[in-house]
């Protein structure tokens, strides 16, 4: 596939400069798709652009975006983390158990504890993958089950009911900065985490190392990249973000259920990451693209509801979108490679 037998022809590169530049901006396809869906939906149903629906789209984002920011780093290193849904539930349930015992427990301390639980869960994943050399899918498949089991053990199988979730935490999903109700705090936090992740991946040495490991693990080791520590760090951050999402879940939905919260969510997250132009082969992907990927899933979700498409269609549409986005991306990459190598 990737065999480049002849030396790339220099003049061809200059000839297709424009095409390469466009294709290199990998998010272009998905942004076009996003615009198309928004236009289509608002032509068919003008009420689609009503503030209420836009707010629903915004509220849909935080859970997905926050975990996806961790998952994209994992996938850039050529790994995968399927335990995020269980980690989210474990953190949410554990904090919920504290609320059950002590309803007036400080909400910032609660958030800190949720993040710490997620951090520990992620660190275990990271240690298993970085040092025990387990394949990422095996390690996180194991912890997917293990953390879900722990969630049941910690909670005794009972749900954290809405009356136990602190009002202030629920308010994070209702009110935003300056008392506005359009962009609630959870959305602001999700934006913030996206920007931080983008900056981290692009402007720090560790961030560049993450790309280097995904691009060529052995080469990056030879260049002195602390491979094990970086991989460990990536999974730990993902765990911490998933733990934080446990709080976001409680805030958004007002309950945490051991058998429902985050079940199958890892697949939605991976879908968003991949739709956002991240290559499963590692070495490429961006926080910005993934954010657009999350936005696309949110828009599709709300558009289906507004257009009156039965909820039963949602899953199939998801599957089709993931497939189309992936195939389109693969074709673009193929064209790009042919343009560069002149094959």
């Amino acid at each position, binding site marked *: *596939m990737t065999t480049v037998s002849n030396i790339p022809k220099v003049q061809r590169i200059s000839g297709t400069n424009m095409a390469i530049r466009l294709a290199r901006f990998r998010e272009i396809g998905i942004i076009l798709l996003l615009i198309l869906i928004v236009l289509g939906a608002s032509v068919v149903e003008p009420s689609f652009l009503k503030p209420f629906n836009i707010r629903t789209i915004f509220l849909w984002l935080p859970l997905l975006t926050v975990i996806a920011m961790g998952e994209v780093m994992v996938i850039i290193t050529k790994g*995968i983390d399927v335990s995020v849904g269980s980690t989210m539930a474990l953190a949410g349930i554990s904090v919920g158990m504290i609320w059950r015992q002590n309803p007036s427990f400080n909400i910032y301390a609660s958030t800190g504890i949720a993040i710490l639980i997620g951090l520990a869960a992620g660190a275990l994943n990271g240690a298993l993958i970085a040092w025990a050399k387990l*394949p990422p899918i095996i390690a996180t498949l194991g912890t997917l*089950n293990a953390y879900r089991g722990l969630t049941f053990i910690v909670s005794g199988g009972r749900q954290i009911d809405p009356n136990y979730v602190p009002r202030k935490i629920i308010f994070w999903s209702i009110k935003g900065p300056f008392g506005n109700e359009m962009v609630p705090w959870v959305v602001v936090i999700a934006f913030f985490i996206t920007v931080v992740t983008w900056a981290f991946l692009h402007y720090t040495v560790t961030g560049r190392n993450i790309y280097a490991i995904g691009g060529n693990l052995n080469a990056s080791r030879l260049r002195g990249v602390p491979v094990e520590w970086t991989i460990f760090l990536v999974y730990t951050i993902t765990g911490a973000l998933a733990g934080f999402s446990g709080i976001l879940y409680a805030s958004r939905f007002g309950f945490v259920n051991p058998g429902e919260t985050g079940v199958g969510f890892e697949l939605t997250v991976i879908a968003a990451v991949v739709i956002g132009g991240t290559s499963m*082969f590692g070495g490429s992907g961006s926080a910005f693209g993934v954010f657009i990927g999350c936005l696309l899933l949110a828009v599709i979700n709300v558009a289906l509801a507004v257009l009156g498409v039965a909820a039963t269609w949602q899953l199939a549409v998801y599957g089709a979108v993931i497939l189309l986005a992936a195939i389109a991306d693969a074709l673009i990459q193929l064209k790009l490679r042919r343009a560069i190598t002149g094959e």
Partner: protein
Amino acid sequence: MSIKKPSTTVIRKTNTTSTGLSVLNILTRSEILTLFLLILAFVVGTILSPYFLDIPFLLNNTSTYIEIGIMGLGLVAVIINGEIDLSVESTLALVACVAGVLFFDLHFPMPIVLVISLALGAALGWLNGFLVTRTSLPSLLVTLATLALYRGAANILVGDDSRPKLAWSREIVFPSWFLGVEKVHILGTPIPLPLVILIVLAVIIGIILAKTTFGRWVYAIGTNEQAARYSGIPTARVKRILFTLSGFLAGLAGLIMVSRLGVARYDHARGWALDAITAVVLGGVSIEGGKGGVLGPVLAFLLIVILRTGMGVANIKAESQLAVIGALLIGAVLTSNFIERFHK
């Protein structure tokens, strides 16, 4: 996963033959650890409870998880080949729902329904294989998409209801000869029919993998796909055949599930693909491809049944049992990695 380290696998294999330590050779066989755990589970269970060694009860309990085992058989071949198929559980659900709609809504005779359903399962699997080989996208991604797509199609087809519908009279059911496959036992023995089906399929697939040229191709592609292609193996065709097999077996599992439960629903077997992969990996099949066999996953399947039954007897809730299964998976792979490293 398509992440492969072909070179190390090859080196390890030559080392194994050259050192010629026969005991270690047996120890590093992928099934041994699973067999050991299986025996251990038996012994511990028997010590803990005198009622544990109720063989007919254990055998009947295999039917409860039989779909995991049958999906796992298809996955064994796909994973040895270096690919993965997450969509099996959705294929199962879609085939089950199509069977229900064909029989109740379109009034097809049941034998024809069965034929069409099995063909559909194979077709869904073939589509996976086609997409993987034509687009050269990772199978993890393609089957992640069809995981949603196939179950989504089942959801569109029957909605949140089931076939037969909840509102229908109790007399409208599948034909009685089709229902209750788990209640059929072979010649007065306590072995239920689904387990027999699993074992027969395992023997067939085991022989194909171990004794035929096609089987050698599967391992060769899983070890080093590029080398396999350069040595003239039709890699794309082999892959398509394996995905088709995986879809076919998932479809068969769907029919068995409908026969067991008497209803077809779109959410049948939700999340079971990961369980099936767990059984396969616990059975010593390398997720990186090129290594493993059918025997290990079948033993692992029995191990999971015994553990789940044992924990059920001990009154541990089904969901809490997940923690043990997860820990077991990690522990087993860690141990086999450790033995291999020690061996080297």
